[in-house]
């Protein structure tokens, strides 16, 4: 068992235990922190597979930007652990069973599949930023430009949706009379 395998198992255990923490912790802030842990261990996996660019982008975009957005929203709403209503035991149990059965089915299917790939431990340079940039701007220019339009529309959409309404709708006034 060399260093590569030790790191692989360490990162795998961290990723799965943090992912379980996300769905099991009562407090949403703890869930966000566990999810950040998962993202860091996935970034560690990227570095093990020599995809440095994606590892850095994963940390900057996911653990940096997206998770800070989640934290802001959670703290804006002041959600506590006891505020969240829980689903009934039966529904929780059904969720666990159906997820576990899906895992078992795919596990059984993959056991018979003939996938005989081996990830070489030697460093390859396809994950470096120079090669990825060349591939991106030679073969994938159109999706790159389309994604900029997607970002623009998402930005405008988020602003339009999140804008405060000047007059509250009458249906909601009936439900919450003290809402201003």
């Amino acid at each position, binding site marked *: 068992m060399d260093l*590569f395998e030790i790191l692989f198992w360490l990162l*795998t255990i961290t*990723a*799965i235990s943090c*992912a*379980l923490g*996300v*769905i099991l912790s009562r407090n*949403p802030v703890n869930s*966000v922190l566990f*999810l950040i842990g*998962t*993202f860091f261990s996935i970034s560690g*996996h990227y570095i093990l*597979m020599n*995809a440095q*660019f*994606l590892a850095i*982008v*994963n940390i900057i*975009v996911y653990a940096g*930007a*997206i998770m800070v*957005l*989640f934290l802001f*929203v959670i703290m804006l709403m002041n959600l506590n652990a006891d505020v*969240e*209503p*829980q*689903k009934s035991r039966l529904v*929780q149990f*059904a*969720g666990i069973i*159906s*997820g576990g059965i*899906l*895992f078992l089915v795919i*596990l059984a299917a*993959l056991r018979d599949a003939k*996938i005989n*790939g081996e*990830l070489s431990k030697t460093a390859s340079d*396809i*994950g470096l930023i120079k090669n*990825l940039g060349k*591939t*991106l701007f030679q073969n*994938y220019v159109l999706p790159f430009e389309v*994604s900029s339009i*997607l*970002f623009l*529309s*998402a930005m405008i959409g988020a*602003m339009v*949706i*999140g804008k*405060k309404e000047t007059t509250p*709708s009458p249906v*909601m006034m009936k439900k*919450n009379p003290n809402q201003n």
Partner: protein
Amino acid sequence: MPIQYYIFLSFALFCIGIMGTLMRRNAIIIFMCIELMLNAVNLLLVAFSKMFNDPSSQIFVFFIMVVAAAEVAVGLAIIVMMYRKVHSVDINILNRLKH
């Protein structure tokens, strides 16, 4: 390192995301579970890219991250608006969309 280990790892993460989506009622946690599933797919794509020595799938991971960022911005705006209307992020309240 055999590719099977990475397949099992990413599928385990994906199933944990599915379980969280089915178990919880908090809309923000359901969103986080969707992010978890997207990340599991990303991990598998990077593993295949390493196996086949092909940079295209890493570009695909990059685009998945782009779409995830846009999705989170719009989704959190919807959650904030819902919280402003009904003072809760419980998804069962959205039952009334049926009527």
